[in-house]
């Protein structure tokens, strides 16, 4: 039983089925990959798992508990955290405050006496954002902004972390550091689900990969199995034509 599980999730927008009967799991201590061409339904699946989108059918289980009907904030308090493909940083706050506010919310919710400032410094250091901590988030490049989103999510001490294209916009060096950080986080027991178009990165990091196309899972398996799957190659040839 995985820490986070979807069971037969289906999402429709009008007549368009964006997510079609998807059942996948995300395990503790591992990075699970979720790939697929643009419009495959990855972001919609994340939205459904986190409660921003209501599914037409199916259930979301977190640690065995059905959370399908819970609002996003309650899911977050049960240990879910995510980043957004379309960056959702708090533009009126500095980088440091973007991260710190996650601690503020945690503190207000739990009444805990955590030292938010100290925790923020720790996360800043861990994510390598120390040098830009006091800049406005609107002044930093996209690649680093994505790391700020991850840092903000980490500040909630999540059990499962959903990353929506976190490496897009990052330079090669940034991606390398980022990969090391993810591996480290997984080793500490975090369950990570990674949506990413940088396939070499996904192949390198993930233990299991699910491939979505037209909303449905067309393949699941280890990186090696996925690379050899004829369905996946067929699905990706379409992308090659587009790009």
């Amino acid at each position, binding site marked *: 039983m995985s820490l986070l599980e979807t069971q037969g999730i289906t999402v429709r927008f009008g007549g368009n089925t964006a997510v079609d009967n998807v059942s996948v799991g995300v395990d503790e201590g591992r990075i699970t990959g979720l790939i697929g061409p643009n419009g495959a339904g990855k972001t919609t699946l994340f939205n459904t798992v986190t409660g921003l989108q209501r599914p037409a059918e199916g259930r979301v289980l977190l640690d065995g508990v059905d959370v399908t009907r819970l609002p996003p*904030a309650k899911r977050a308090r049960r240990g879910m955290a995510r980043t957004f493909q379309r960056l959702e940083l708090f533009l009126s706050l500095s980088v440091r405050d973007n991260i710190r506010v996650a601690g503020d919310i945690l503190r207000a*919710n739990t009444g805990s006496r955590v030292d938010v400032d100290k925790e923020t410094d720790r996360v800043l250091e861990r994510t390598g954002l120390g040098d830009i901590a006091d800049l406005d988030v609107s002044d930093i490049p996209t690649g680093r902004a994505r790391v700020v989103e991850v840092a903000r999510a980490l500040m*909630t001490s999540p059990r499962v972390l959903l990353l929506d*294209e976190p490496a897009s916009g990052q330079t090669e060096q940034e991606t390398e550091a980022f990969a090391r950080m993810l591996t480290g986080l997984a080793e500490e027991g975090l369950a990570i689900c990674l949506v990413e178009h940088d396939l070499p990165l996904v192949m390198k990091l993930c233990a299991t990969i699910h491939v979505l196309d037209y909303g449905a899972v067309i393949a699941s398996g280890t990186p090696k199995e996925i690379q050899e799957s004829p369905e996946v190659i067929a699905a990706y040839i379409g992308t090659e*034509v587009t790009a």
Partner: protein
Amino acid sequence: MTTFLTFTILGLVLGAVYAIAASGLVLTYNTSGIFNFAHGAQAMLGAFLYWQLAYGWGWPVWLALVVVLGVVGPAMGGLLHALIMKGLRDTADVTKIVVTVAVLLGMVYLSQWIWHPEEARIVEMFFGSNAKVEFSGVVIRVHEIICLVVAAAIAIGLRLLFTRSRVGVVMRGAVDDPDLLRLNGHNPERVAALSWMMGSTLAVLAGILITPIGGGALQANALTLLVIDAFAAAMFGRLRSIPRTFAGAIVLGMTATYVMAYFPSAWTWTSNFRISLPMIILFVVLIVLPQERLRGAAIRTRERYRVPTVRRAAVWGVALVAVVYLLKLLMVETSVSTFALGMTFAIIALSLTVLTGYAGELNLAPLSFGAVATIVVFHFGVVGTGLAARLDVWGVLLAVLVTAVVGGLVALPALRLRGLYLALATLAFGVFLSNMVLRDTTEHTVFGVTFSLFPNGSLIIPPLRIGPLDLRDGDTFLMTATVLFALIGVGLIALRNSGYGRRLAAMKDSPAASAMLGQNLVKLKLSVFMISAAIAGLGSVLMSSAIGSVASENFNVMAGLALLMLTVAAGIGYVSGALFGGLMSGVGFVIIVATFNDLAAANPDLAPVYQAIGSLSVVSTALLGIGVGKSPSGTVHDVVESYRSLRDARPVLVGGAVLEAALYGLTLAGIMDNWWFAILTACLVMMLPVFGRMVMARVAPDEGRPAPHRTPPELVGVDEPYTEELRRELDRELGLSGHDRGPTPGGRRPVRSGAEEGNVHVVA
């Protein structure tokens, strides 16, 4: 039975007119994303113009109708769209709402200038109120038949338009899903322009039809606020569906009429209740409306505010108190009390700073919450009688507390929903309060206690006494109000710099991301709304006691809207914005108008000119609000930014300070009068940054202006709205030909927007 049928028909007629008004509102909202608070004002302006043509100038009715409906209505809508609304894409909801509120106020001021409000004007029913038809005992007036027929025709017309014509199909596509429109390559601006023209015409039509039904007297404010009824009707269709809007309008019209007919007429609340019905229905609909999807920062808005540190804020606070003290020395007694009144408005404006500036939520009726506080303090906070009467601190505290609770209760139904709904709820509450509570002069007996909420139509609010501090003295009042403003202002800045303030900012910037960090948005909004209502309550109690005797006019919805508009124009994110907005709306108007009237009295030859200038300057304050669309961060922000460059130009700053001190000295010595002092000071404040730049350019010519900021390609569409133009540019840079690639090749569905695209790495 006959009575029932008669009332049913009356209800249908009222519903029909609501439907006409509401469908226009829905149309513009869906095609341009702007909820037009000025819709009622457009109806009002149209009705006045119709009166002018048909009655004032005696034109034939048909000609007046052709001109007003065929020319003025569409032109008004088209102009609004072209000049103002088109520029509002990619602004925050708050900005959009405030701009339409400014249009509303501008129209009201304009109408009051052209058509003096104290003159009576009557619009008769079409064919007169005696033209009627009788069906088996049920009498219907021809005007009522016209209303029904016109509404039916519009319903059928809209239906045909939507199903049969190309542009109508596009529009309906927009009504159902605005994004789809853009995806399918239609030009949203053209459709929006058309719908503004239609919406405006529908508003004008509704205004002309409803005035005779409501008795015939043209009344600018009442007609303008009639739009609340249309809001309630539109809410039935979730502001989207026209058929449901029609159904809602009919329900609303019938209920209102039945209440009038069957509630005991001896019960004085009945007519008030009927007037307040739309607001009650609005709240019921708000409660049952399903929750919407949480939104992220769908657009990268242009609003930016800098938050000072608490220490710096405290320094400014002390400086403010000192400056006010120095200014007080220049003033005569009446000016001091006017100034003090302005300061109490500034305190009320602070309630908007925290709510709108920090949390991104709107309260369109700040003064109405203030009225609640005033009523409470009148009933529970006055000790002593006659000249010895004073407010005591506990009474004021109680009033503030009650206001916070009432604020929470009013806001609660709307908090699950988008900010627009909270704005609507507060406006509806404001109108409700003006209609029911502030007119409630009768005595009630509840549990054996006899009281009336608003005896004699006005309340005498004595000055406050806190221990030895007696605010009957004008100087003491002014300084106390100033110190209070400074304290609350510094307090708010401290709040903004705290964890709570960061949570507010997070909620404002991205509700979705903030919820994903575990923030309960309803709870946070509720708390900040209560804090805001409490501040409005405190400010209003002081305002009432500064005025001495307050009537319902003092808590007028329009005055509250003007306060909001001017505060946003000055800078809603800044405490100093509240200071300027409050002073301007509280006493600025009065001073401007009084000054020009004085001038007119002193120079009878030029009197009309001076009076016109006075009226014009009041109307043009609405332009300040409309200007918010262009510079959403407010004037204070722009001034602060211009002074920022002066930090390195010490000599200029010192020179400016010395000059100002000299001006002050001359004025204090009586060599120069206060007007000159004010004018020269204003010039100095404005010229200093310009001067500074000149001096600095001389000192360090190399450090000219930095190169214009250019967004790097990878951030295009992320930090800035992704426009068609940007897309072309990107396509060019990437060497992609064919700007209008239809559906993407390879059988891929089109991606939603460029920002979603990301980098696509291909398996090699």
